[in-house]
């Protein structure tokens, strides 16, 4: 079963939840899809067994064949090509790798060359298989890396897959939840938290994914995120109380459930609630 963990904004506890759930689930796979700023590996410190380079195709112009018609320059919607003093210059960082120039060149003077945009690292940490996607700084889109991360994983029998999604609701998030069976929305108990929760709530509804909420950093008093969930009839899977000790462990990149029985129990209870809820939801949606 593939469980995606998302939130509207960074800092709500996506990684805290996905990392700790993956550990209490014992036989599990953790995939870090936050390719711009992957953090999961800081907690797992996995032993890396494999590294794969991810690349995309950038145009290469054969000057001998090019006749300067400029069809490619005029076609490119991203302004990645320029024609100066009889030569085509390609701007790698702006190119979206759509292949249009290659298809349209009447002389067939353009071919593709590979440009690395990032990598995927596979490893393990105490029984959890850890996949990390890393986008090179300055690269435009992490979508190709996420596509590769999620397609390469065979759904192994008995292993739950936890997908640590990027924050927000942009294309990289959509790509991360595309094949998820169930989504966990992590929310914090602030006015901002609700606003951001609403964003991912709209997203999972749009993609018709079954989902539930985990309220993190809960304090005493009114919880606007809880109120929102009740209003919108969103199943609250669990509440993680605000806990300085937990915060400190997390800020030191320590896996809470390994450090203290209290947290192991907390996250086990949460995992049980999810397992109970998820298959039922998945079944009713098919």
């Amino acid at each position: 079963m593939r469980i995606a963990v998302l939130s509207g904004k960074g800092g709500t506890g996506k990684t805290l939840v996905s990392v700790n759930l993956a550990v209490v689930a014992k036989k599990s796979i953790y995939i870090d899809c936050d390719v711009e700023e992957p953090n999961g590996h800081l907690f797992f410190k996995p032993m890396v067994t494999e590294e794969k380079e991810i690349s995309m195709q950038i145009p290469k112009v054969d000057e001998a064949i090019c006749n300067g018609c400029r069809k490619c320059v005029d076609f490119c919607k991203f302004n990645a090509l320029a024609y100066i003093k009889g030569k085509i210059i390609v701007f790698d960082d702006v190119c979206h790798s759509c292949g249009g120039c290659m298809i349209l060149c009447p002389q067939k003077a353009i071919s593709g060359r590979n440009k690395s945009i990032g990598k995927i690292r596979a490893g393990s940490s105490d029984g959890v298989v850890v996949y990390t996607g890393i986008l090179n700084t300055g690269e435009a889109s992490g979508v190709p890396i996420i596509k590769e991360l999620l397609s390469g994983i065979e759904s192994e029998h008995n292993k739950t897959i936890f997908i640590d999604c990027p924050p927000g609701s942009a294309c990289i998030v959509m790509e991360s939840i595309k094949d998820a069976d169930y989504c966990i929305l992590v929310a914090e108990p602030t006015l901002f938290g609700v606003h951001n929760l609403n964003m991912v709530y709209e997203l999972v509804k749009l993609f018709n994914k079954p989902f539930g909420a985990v309220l993190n950093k809960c304090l005493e008093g009114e919880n606007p995120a809880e109120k929102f969930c009740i209003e919108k009839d969103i199943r609250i899977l669990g509440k993680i109380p605000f806990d300085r000790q937990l915060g400190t462990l997390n800020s030191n990149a320590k896996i809470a459930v390994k450090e203290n029985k209290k947290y192991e129990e907390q996250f086990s209870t949460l995992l049980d609630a999810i397992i109970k809820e998820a298959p039922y939801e998945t079944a009713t949606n098919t």
Partner: protein
Amino acid sequence: MRIAIPSDEKNIDSSICVSFGRTPYFLIYDTDTKIREFIDNSTAASSGGAGIKAAQILVDEKTDALITPRCGENAADVLKSADIKIYKSISSSIKDNIDAFVSGKLCLLDEIHPGFHGHRK
């Protein structure tokens, strides 16, 4: 010599636009004939690569030099390949800059900044 200056408006009293790639207009001034021409920058609203396209426009207009407060690295590459010199502007007034250029008071622009990469998702 044909010099280009990014301009906020279509008149000589306008201020220089701080963004080369997204300037709404370019003033093309011919120092020999003293003729002024304003051209539209069709690329101002592009999602990405605006600097590259704007530089291509100047190449196609057979410009010899550009006066601008700053310039991104991609645009600079295009201009340098075309042997178009890039000068650093001195004030926000187009008129002042033309005068300074003609009297040889302008310096070449050294600090080229990294591009605003990846206007994608």
